């Protein structure tokens, strides 16, 4: 019976799995404790009838190709999981439908194609597209450089080579776009991805969204052939190969600390204890600093920071197994953004209400993986966010009614936007509400996007202050609540980074 580990990871979400591999790859011993009976957190799948639904992933950005791996491809290589995963590239970025303005545009992937689209949208449009991608590209380059120099950049290089980053970094997306003053259709089409970050443009930092748009448009995106459950099992297999342990149905109740306030172990809800001096938590700091640590071990500054932060979107997804093929149904794209308006500040506000039909991000998996469901059937999932804690007033008795009412509205919105019928073809239906997400991953209020990307708590602020923001010796927090915010690539990277920092902490102790 092994009870002592160099590192213990709480939660086997993307962040936890990557953190475990980061330390195991360097020869440390590691135990992962997961509350659920599966690894992955949101990165999972489930079976209903003859359909296997993807639980979360719409598209994965940053894998690249075998020959030319993207930033996450490089990470997967380093962690030793690349050979265990097969990917299929996507062909278009999204079909954007904005109901208020009657916009319906399909945006391709690939720099040249996006630029070419510009002229179709408005006169001289291609020039603006090119202009934007150049600006966004220079920001992505700056961020790559910042990553490479581990947050200690040469100020002169920053002020010369990466000046665009330096001039835009403190501004919101809105502030920069207002100044750029592009034709409105160009701006609207470029902003489609905003809901993936779940922040409205006057809060969201320009560099964050610009970098994301640039990565998707120029580097493309893909999906794994075996759903994200296949990703999670690939990570688990690698953990076993490296001699790590991973226990399921194992909810951690407490992070133990010694008299100096340093981490000393963890305690499961069943009372069992495991010992370590280094914990990486893949759960929300709101849980860690409320119930998981003893009051006396919670630094005041940690409470200040955690209180300062705002929750990002709470999730809502409708999963449909349809008994007709996508062609028969009239669904020809893989991914859709349907917004009630292009004004994302307005849409964001509407998303605070229950029910709402402010907008949706919808995926037809068959248009990426034709064989993902039996011949003549379709998998479609519709996701939206709640920008407020709107489900807090729903009672146990009204819950199903509310869920169905909300789902009904989203299904109808999709039908109306595409002028098609889904209702008569629904063979399987599953609905995940914030309550579902709270149940499966324990996140407060059913939040799926970690902390909100607000002005001063955006990506670049967090990255630069990541060491400063760690307050309990021996404890690091990685995943969707981490410095890179939510998303598949971000949560894996954040986990791996916290793993690397923990290795640093261990090395320092050795001295």
């Amino acid at each position, binding site marked *: 019976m092994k009870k002592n580990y160099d590192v213990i990871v709480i939660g086997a979400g993307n962040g936890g799995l990557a953190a475990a591999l980061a330390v195991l790859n360097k020869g440390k011993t590691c135990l992962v404790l997961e509350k659920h009976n599966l690894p992955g957190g949101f990165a999972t799948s489930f079976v209903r009838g003859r359909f296997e639904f993807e639980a979360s992933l719409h598209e994965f950005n940053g894998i690249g190709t075998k020959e030319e791996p993207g930033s996450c491809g490089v990470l997967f290589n380093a962690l030793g999981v690349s050979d265990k995963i097969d990917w299929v590239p996507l062909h278009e970025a999204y079909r954007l439908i904005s109901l208020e303005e009657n916009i319906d545009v399909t945006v391709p992937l690939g720099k040249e194609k996006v630029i070419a689209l510009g002229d179709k949208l408005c006169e001289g449009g291609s020039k603006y597209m090119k202009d934007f991608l150049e600006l966004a590209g220079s920001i992505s380059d700056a961020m790559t450089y910042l990553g490479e120099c581990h947050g200690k950049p040469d100020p002169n290089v920053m002020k010369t080579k990466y000046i665009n980053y330096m001039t*835009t970094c403190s501004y919101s997306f809105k502030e920069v776009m207002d100044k750029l003053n592009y034709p409105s259709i160009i701006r609207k089409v470029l902003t489609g991805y905003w809901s993936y970050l779940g922040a409205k443009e006057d809060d969201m930092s320009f560099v964050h969204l610009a970098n994301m748009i640039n990565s998707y448009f120029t580097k493309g995106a893909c999906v794994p052939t075996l759903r994200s459950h296949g990703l999670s*099992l690939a990570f688990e297999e690698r953990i076993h190969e490296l001699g790590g342990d991973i226990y399921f149905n194992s909810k951690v109740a407490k992070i133990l600390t010694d008299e100096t306030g340093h981490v000393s172990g963890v305690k499961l809800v069943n009372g069992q204890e495991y010992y370590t001096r280094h914990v990486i938590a893949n759960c929300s700091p709101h849980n860690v600093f409320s119930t998981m640590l003893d009051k006396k071990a919670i630094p005041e500054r940690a409470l200040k920071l955690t209180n300062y932060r705002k929750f990002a979107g709470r999730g809502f997804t409708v999963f449909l197994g349809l008994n007709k093929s996508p062609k028969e149904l009239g669904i020809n794209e893989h991914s859709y953004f349907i917004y009630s308006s292009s004004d994302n500040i307005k849409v964001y506000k509407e998303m605070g209400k229950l029910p709402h039909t402010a907008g949706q991000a919808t995926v037809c998996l068959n248009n990426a993986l034709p064989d993902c469901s039996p011949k003549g059937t379709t998998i479609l999932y519709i996701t939206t966010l709640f920008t407020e804690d709107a489900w807090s007033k729903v009672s146990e008795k009204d819950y199903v009614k509310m869920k169905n009412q909300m789902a009904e509205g989203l299904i109808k919105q999709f039908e109306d936007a595409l002028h098609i019928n889904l209702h008569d073809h629904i063979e399987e239906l599953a609905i995940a509400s914030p309550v579902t997400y*709270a149940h499966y991953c324990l996140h407060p209020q059913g939040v799926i996007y970690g902390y909100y990307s607000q002005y001063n708590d955006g990506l670049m602020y967090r990255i630069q*202050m990541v060491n400063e923001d760690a307050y309990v010796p021996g404890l690091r927090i990685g995943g969707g609540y981490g410095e890179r915010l939510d998303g598949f690539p971000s949560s894996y990277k954040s986990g791996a980074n916290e793993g690397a920092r923990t290795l640093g902490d261990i090395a320092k102790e050795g001295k």
Partner: protein
Amino acid sequence: MFTKNGPNEDVKRTLSMLDVRRKLIDDTPAKELPKTYAVNQLADALHPGFIKATIKEIKPCSKNSKVITLSAKKFPYFRAGQYVTISVKINGKVVTRPYSIMSSPNDALMGKLELGVQTAGYVSTYLTTQAKVGETVLVSEPIGDFHHDSIRDEDTIYALAGGSGITPFVSMIKAIIEGSENFKLVILYGVKSKADLMLDITKIKDDRIKIIPVYSDEKVEGAENGFLTKELIKKYLPEKASIFMCGANLMYQFVKKELAALQFDLHQIRSETNCAVDQKIDNPREFNLIVHMRDEVYQIKAKENESLLVAMERAGLAAPSRCRGGHCGFCHSRLIKGSYVAPKEYEHRRLADFKFKYIHPCSTYPSSDMEIDVPPVDELKEF
């Protein structure tokens, strides 16, 4: 180059960003954080995992079945048609079985849950013949998607029930009457004889509910006689309805053929899954099974004709058990070594499970010595 307020001003702003954030954090009060949230509390209310309950009453239901009434402070609100598992201790070992709930959703909130149990099988026979009022049992949260859904289904359910397969529909009847569900129900209810009916049909007087008993071993005046044939199914078929089926596997085989003959697309028929049963093997071999549960390792025996879950329960291990029919995924476990048989009718694993070698022990039978890694269920151990 982009600039908003001139490069110098923009860069200055960027360089001062962190101080601004530091100050914002400094200025936030170090309040204690909430320990929970309404949404998380609702999640806990709906999904408490396991609930300790007592057997409050055991009374005859039909010739061959009893109603077991369970009582606790409160059970989660559920969707009529769902099931729970109940775990009991027999000869010192905990065994778990799924049963459809026969009572109503509103009753659950009042702390009452009824199960209709037919005297057949190991646990059911224990429950109807040996279990005592006052005994403590462990009940799971309600689970399953054998329920009406306003989006997915028509406004009418055409139920084809056989024997104790009536129980989820009894819950639906009660739910419709009390107003917690809103749909119409036409039930073709196949039983051997009048004495086998698990509900008193004469007492149900509601326009939205119609029950047609079909007796196979007895001729009753004014009632249908025989099996659930295509003629009978057609005779009572509502104009627009979703077909739900619940009964034994033999009944499914028969009814599916009849439905196919009526040109129904069988994929659109919803049937409640049954537990995986022992395989029919003459002189079954016995294998060694090594089971890892966290840091514990157990060496036990497993018979070729019994599922790995049964082997673990025989050995007194706290193994995960819910649907016992391969479809809920609750028993998802990692295969370390060995070969096995997984019958097709219970095959609902995820694609990646095949590649990375995961199994559902409830519906997996050993064909060699095996080694598996299973998530333990602590509640069963402590119970």
